[in-house]
């Protein structure tokens, strides 16, 4: 019995030592400027912080966490300490607003009886089982003494095997679960010790930004000085790209394109700049540009990459894999984009649920040439297909402002006024506080004479314009127009007279407005 006890003690000791070695190291996140001057108060603040949960990280105390909310709570604790509040009072006020959850040690309450009670119950249950087993062993001993020749009970040995198998199963299952879901997180890196590192990074970033600005200025000056030098425009484009000035970049590339008579590589760079300007979305104009480039030069790598990206963004993952695989086979094995390309292919293949190697690496040069000679009708059908997909997606996600802008551009190109009108209204509804969006939807309605089809929407947009800026001339004119449409001539006259009075006498539209008022 003493041997057994000492074994238990040794195992326990080993477990405690293991926990000490592998457990999280204390790593406070408190920063020097938060600290209180009074060391006694500060040490109470630290002690309290260790008992409070960071509600956004959930398994760290606010003493350990770099999260913004944790910082706020640390400051709050110190604020209250400075007013002379007791530890218990501080914990109580925080519990009042954030609930029991803010305490890392949950209080005993009806909701936590199971939590606190379970270990006791399990311990008592274990003791009971141990006692039962010991009693059985004594019974066995007594029985063997009774009957020397009794064979080992087959039922008992079966039970032992079942128990052993079950225990192994549980251990294997927990190990499996850990391998699937478990993750040993990195230890905390307290903010306090990284102050110098962060400051250095900030100065460096600032320095780099001002360097880029200077380089852009220089490149702009050089390009204006030698407007016939392709290299100067390309350098300007690169400097603008580094400063994320897409407008300048696209302008410079257009100049370079003009000088080279539409070099496919430069056009592809422009397509890429257009996509970058649209938050990485390959817009419809960019797609048309890409289609044009691939028609001339089917192996243009940048255009191929963007065309794959366009397919990916249309959620046509199989096509994306095909196009990117083709780019892979066309590129030299040490091309700088190979790593990114391989990652993209893997990603698209996963989304499509296919094995990338099973995909034929894209259409060959002939097929692309065929696509280039697509008739105008086929091409229009292809673009219309892309647009339908976008419109369907926006019906589900009406808040996607960039999507509405793309759709509006597409409908303008395709000359579909009614769809364009609906898209303009969609954008106006997505950004109801933007008066220009409201006005441009209304203006198009007036110009395209679509008022009858969108009565409800026009009322909604007019109401918003009225609220946002009742003095906007365009808004007043359009309100008058709709009043006239509705047969409310008096209101229309009042609005337009008001507008006429605001116009400077020499405004070009003044005579037209006068005539419209007189015609009422």
């Amino acid at each position, binding site marked *: 019995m003493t041997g057994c006890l000492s074994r238990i003690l040794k195992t326990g000791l080993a477990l405690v030592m293991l926990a000490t070695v592998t457990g999280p190291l204390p790593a406070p996140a408190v920063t020097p400027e938060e600290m209180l001057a009074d060391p006694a108060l500060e040490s109470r603040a630290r002690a309290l912080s260790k008992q409070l949960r960071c509600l956004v990280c959930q398994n760290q105390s606010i003493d350990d966490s770099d999260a913004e909310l944790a910082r706020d709570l640390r400051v709050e604790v110190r604020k209250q300490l400075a007013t002379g509040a007791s530890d218990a009072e501080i914990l109580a006020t925080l519990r009042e607003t954030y609930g029991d959850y803010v305490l890392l040690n949950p209080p005993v309450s009806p909701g936590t009886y199971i939590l606190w009670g379970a270990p006791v119950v399990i311990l008592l249950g274990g003791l009971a089982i141990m006692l*039962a087993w010991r009693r059985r062993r004594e019974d066995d001993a007594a029985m063997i003494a009774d009957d020397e020749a009794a064979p080992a009970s087959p*039922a008992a040995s079966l*039970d032992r095997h079942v128990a052993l198998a*079950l225990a192994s199963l*549980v251990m294997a299952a927990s190990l499996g679960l850990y391998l699937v879901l478990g993750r040993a997180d990195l230890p905390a890196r307290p903010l306090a010790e990284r102050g110098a590192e962060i400051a250095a990074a900030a100065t460096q970033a600032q320095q780099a930004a001002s360097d880029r600005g200077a380089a852009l200025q220089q490149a702009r000056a050089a390009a204006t000085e030698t407007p016939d030098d392709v290299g100067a425009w390309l350098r300007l484009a690169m400097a603008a790209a580094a400063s994320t000035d897409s407008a300048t970049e696209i302008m410079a590339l257009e100049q370079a394109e003009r000088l080279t008579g539409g070099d496919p590589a430069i056009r592809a760079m422009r397509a890429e700049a257009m996509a970058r300007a649209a938050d990485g979305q390959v817009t419809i104009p960019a797609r048309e540009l890409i289609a044009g480039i691939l028609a001339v030069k089917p192996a243009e790598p940048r255009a191929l990459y963007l065309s794959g990206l366009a397919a990916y963004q249309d959620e046509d993952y199989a096509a994306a894999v095909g196009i990117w695989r083709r780019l892979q086979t066309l590129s030299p094995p040490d091309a700088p984009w190979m790593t990114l390309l391989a990652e993209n292919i893997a990603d698209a293949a996963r989304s499509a649920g296919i094995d990338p190697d099973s995909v034929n690496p894209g259409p060959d040069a002939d097929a692309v040439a065929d696509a280039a000679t697509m008739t105008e009708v086929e091409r229009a059908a292809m673009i219309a297909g892309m647009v339908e997909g976008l419109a369907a997606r926006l019906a589900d996600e009406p808040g996607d402002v960039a999507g509405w802008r793309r759709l509006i551009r597409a409908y303008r190109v395709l000359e579909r006024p009614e769809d364009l009108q609906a898209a303009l209204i969609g954008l106006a509804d*997505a950004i109801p506080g933007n008066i220009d969006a409201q006005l441009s939807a209304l203006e198009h309605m007036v110009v395209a004479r679509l008022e009858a089809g969108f009565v409800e929407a026009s009322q909604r947009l007019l109401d918003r314009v009225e609220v946002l800026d009742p003095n906007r001339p365009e808004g007043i004119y359009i309100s008058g127009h709709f009043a006239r449409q509705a047969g409310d001539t008096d209101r229309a006259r009042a609005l337009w007279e008001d507008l006429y009075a605001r116009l400077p006498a020499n405004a070009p539209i003044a005579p037209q407005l006068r005539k419209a008022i007189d015609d009422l």
Partner: protein
Amino acid sequence: MTRADGSRTGRLRLSFIIPLAGFLILAAFATVALMATLRGERDMSQLPSAMVGKPAPAIMLPSLLDEGQTISPGDFAGRAFLVNVFASWCAPCRAEAPALELLARDIPIMGIAYKDRPEDSRKFLADYGNPFATIGIDRDGDAGMKWGVYGVPETFLVGADGTILLRHAGPIDRRVLDELLLPANRELP
């Protein structure tokens, strides 16, 4: 064999079945919780709120829209209202703007511009719409702490008697709107 054997298997079965049953019960609980989490029905980041059932904190805040004025939940005395804690730097706040616009037709909304520069808040409202009846500036997040806010956006429903009836942390999406806020709004007396 004799009587001793019979009583032994009885005890043995009990000592085997009790821990097994305990284990199975625990495993069942864990499985249910794990499956709900994996299916997205149980959100670990949705914490229980201690503020539900308590009076709305009566904090005066400088008004964002009328400079020099102050706003407080008392402005809505006798009426139910929503409180939405937002910030221009918070991307989900943009996503929930249309939902708030919809809610504003039925119920006034008090905005709290949490840890945001007033000029940024105004720009945000110009871009994404202003569904708010009043907006308070909470420059350093003090009011947010009184409301028990731990991340923007958060939305509270306050009854006509000034008691917090409901709290939702995170953006208001279609599901939250249809299953939580609109029904709660309908059930108001």
